[in-house]
């Protein structure tokens, strides 16, 4: 390869874990660097927006975007990168399905700002200041990004070519995805890269400990009771989302005795991750009595939204709409 391919890595509303995931590639990253030249990676290198603007359209071979879209700046950067890139990849759960920030879609912008700038227990803000996109401080007029009314997955803002799932994507998934990208034949547009086409149970070492039929009489929480080791967490009553979640992580959480929370998102053809999670979890409740079922749900699954939609609320069937002008 005479010239190295240009690669960009950008973050939006995210925790930074996805950046770590990239760094976690360790020596494998050398392989990437060998083939690629970074043109944007704010967390690691000093590039400016201008540098990207100066590139030709589609000059970047691959852009990885992690994090969901929550502000006007994020929207602008994602649109810019889309224009400058041949391939745009939503990297990690937030970019792919909205992620944990997406749970904020149950609250209005005003409620969120009010909590963080006024009513929150640790807030000290006697002047009652709240961020506004345009404000004047002394002699200077400032402009800060606008905080949108809801969180968007990247494909609700721009066209996305591929997705790499995970919170964060594991080293192996990232490596698989990169191998797929640099292979001679690109996968079909819209594919999930690097992960499995089957659910986590398929690769979970504890799947063998399941009895043939699964029923749950009581749901438990890991913060209240300690799971037994080496025994399927679901059959113990922990709402492990392995059955409804795409595999590929090699059951890292389960191996640490922690139930799967679903960061790898839904399987192909599942339209709504949370609805499917509701369906399978409720189906295995071992009771036919309405009162008892309610008790089992209310005692063990008392905050079902955060269980079934922890990473994918913005992509729920109802919410799955493209961004409108000005995001909110």
């Amino acid at each position: 390869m005479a010239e190295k391919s240009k690669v960009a890595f950008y973050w939006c509303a995210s925790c930074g874990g996805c950046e770590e995931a990239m760094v976690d590639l360790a020596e494998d990253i050398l392989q990437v660097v060998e083939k690629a030249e970074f043109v944007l990676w704010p967390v690691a290198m000093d590039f400016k927006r201008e540098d990207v603007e100066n590139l030709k359209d589609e000059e970047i071979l691959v852009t990885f975007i992690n994090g969901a879209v929550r502000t006007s700046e994020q929207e602008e950067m994602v649109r810019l990168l889309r224009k400058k890139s041949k391939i745009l990849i939503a990297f990690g759960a937030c970019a792919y399905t909205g992620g944990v920030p997406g749970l904020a879609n149950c609250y209005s912008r005003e409620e969120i700002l009010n909590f963080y700038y006024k009513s929150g227990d640790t807030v000290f803000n006697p002047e009652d200041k709240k961020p506004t996109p345009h404000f004047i401080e002394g002699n200077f007029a400032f402009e800060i990004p606008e905080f949108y009314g809801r969180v968007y997955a990247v494909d609700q803002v721009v066209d996305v070519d591929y997705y790499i799932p995970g919170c964060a994507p594991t080293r192996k998934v990232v490596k698989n995805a990169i191998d797929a990208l640099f292979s001679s034949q690109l996968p079909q547009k819209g594919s999930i890269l690097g992960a499995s086409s089957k659910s986590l149970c398929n690769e979970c070492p504890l799947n063998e400990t399941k009895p043939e039929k699964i029923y749950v009489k009581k749901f438990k929480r890991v913060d209240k009771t300690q799971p037994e080791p080496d025994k399927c967490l679901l059959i113990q009553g922990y709402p492990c989302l392995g059955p409804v979640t795409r595999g590929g992580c090699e059951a890292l959480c389960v191996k640490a005795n922690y139930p799967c929370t679903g960061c790898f998102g839904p399987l192909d053809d599942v339209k709504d991750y949370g609805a499917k999670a509701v369906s399978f979890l409720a189906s295995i409740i071992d009771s036919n009595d309405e009162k008892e079922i309610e008790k089992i749900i209310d005692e063990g699954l008392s905050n079902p939204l955060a269980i079934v939609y922890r990473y994918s609320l913005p992509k729920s069937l109802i919410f799955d709409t493209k961004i409108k002008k000005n995001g909110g």
Partner: protein
Amino acid sequence: MNKIRGDGEIRVGVYVCHCGTNIAGRVNIKEVVEFASKLPYVVVAREYKYMCSDPGQELIKNDIKELKLNRIVVASCSPHLHEHTFRKACEDAGLNPFNFQMANIREHVSWVTKDSKEATEKAKAMVRAAVYRVVFHESLERKSQEIHPDVLVIGGGIAGISASLVLADAGKKVYLVEREPSIGGHMAKFDKTFPTLDCASCILTPKMTQVKDHPNIELFTYSEVEEVDGYVGNFTVKIRKRARYVDIEKCVGCYECIEACVYKEGKFPDEFNEGLSKRKPIYIPFPQAVPLAAVIDPATCIQFLSGKCKRTCQQACERGAIDFNMRDEIVEVKVGAIIVATGFKTFDPSRIPQYGYDRYPNVYTALEVERLVNSSGPTGGEIILRDGRRPQSVGIIHCVGSRDKNYNIWCSRVCCMYSLKLAHLIKERTNAEVYCFYIDMRTPGKGYEEFYHKLMEEGVHFIRGKVAEVTDWAVTPEEEGKLIIRVEDTLIGVVRRIPVDMVVLAVGLEPRTDADEIRRLLNISCSKEGWFLERHPKLAPVATFTDGIFIAGACQGPKDIPDTVAQAEAAAAQALALIDRKRIELEPNTAWIDEEKCSGCHICIGLCPYSAISYNEEKKIAVINEALCKGCGVCVAACPSKAAQQRLFLDEQLYAEIEGALL
């Protein structure tokens, strides 16, 4: 609209039916047709006065041929009425019948909507739903499967015997499995049967012999069904033949071994005589037993208990039929249908302490008295008390354990009649005063009411009232040494004390203790009382919800002998009808598992009410046995990977239909 799977060009024809004025009187048909013709993939939309008529169907058939239609929608009545008709029309025109969808614009629209405009809008929505849906339809094949011609009958009482004989006479091979050492069931214990007073063994014994001699019946006595696998037409059944320690092929029932037993006298309660007599460890249950062969009870035989018996029985048997080394044997048979005729048990009256059973020796159950009056019973047919006295007065208490919310709420149906029969027999043989204590006299049945009248003329005393107590606490000299029945005589409104020598408890009928195990073994249902549940209480009284399994006799609910026999023969006829179809067509709306998607998460397996889903250890995925699948789609809705899917009810089809319906 969702994307269509690549499947060539889709050409939809829509046919809107007027149904005379049934639809056209409320729905603007022209508007609906006009609307339909503009829907995606629609090549032609037509209306007709009666779509289900021959010319209506011809319309569809011609269009299929001439316009090369490959999806058909008929908007007319309920699919429950004419889906079959239009599917057949498609098939006749060379189109796979499952490329068809019906829109119900009569029952669900024109007949229930007052406003014509609203009805038209709703009809449009229903048509759009059907068009959107049918686009995702695919050609399906009806699968059929061969039916194994043999039948298993579980239970060798009068129900099982009757069913077996009908089937065997029709040329079917029958495996009849009976838990006890002999067939015959409860009926074999009876002396006479009501209301004709036929001798029970005179009518039953020939049937038992027929079973034994019938070339088409293979009899397994002292055996139990241990495992049932498979599904309608193809059951595999494991039968445990318990070791009898006597070879029934060699034994001729000569009693020599029993005579020779080291026990000179019987020592253990005789089950057949309800414990009223004693038997030896080696015994023949009763003289008419089939098979007429001895059996050794290892729980009482010295050889089994200590290994140090002189084994005089073995020496006495010239034919060498006794084999102490016999082991249980598992036999596997294949059958196409199963008839369950496991019968009932009688209510245990010690649960009602105030009636004194177990406390006063002269309180008997009706079944014990049946043995007492039976000429082959423990007393040779003499009705005598445990101390040898002949009773001067006898009280029969009805509804013991029946029609009582503390015990069983149901009427056991036979007790009034058998009580009358016992009253008659007791009166006839002992000339005792007989009192019947009843709540209501229930005698519906051919000749039953007449029998009741006859008894009243015979001088049996009928006292209407629920017995409060049976006691031996005498308060007057004439009560001394008697059992006193305390009862409110509701006809005269006084509490009475009737002293008698013998009390007979007309115990009710209950489901067998292990009915639930049988239910699980066969995957059939029980009512909450524990009786096996028929598919429909009126129209399918011998079928169960599990295809290929039929129920007969008192295991379905209390019944007398004629009803039992009728039901048994009905079950046999149902089994015959099934088997003689040779093949069964399976519904095409079954579910299947996409192997590429299944992760083997096990979620679906326990949800299937028919145990149609199992785990394939080799492939590590779930597998649906489509012959067992009834097509409910519960697994499909639950499958977290969308690996389970259902034909005719694919997700895509339902999404499209919902989208279309919400016009």
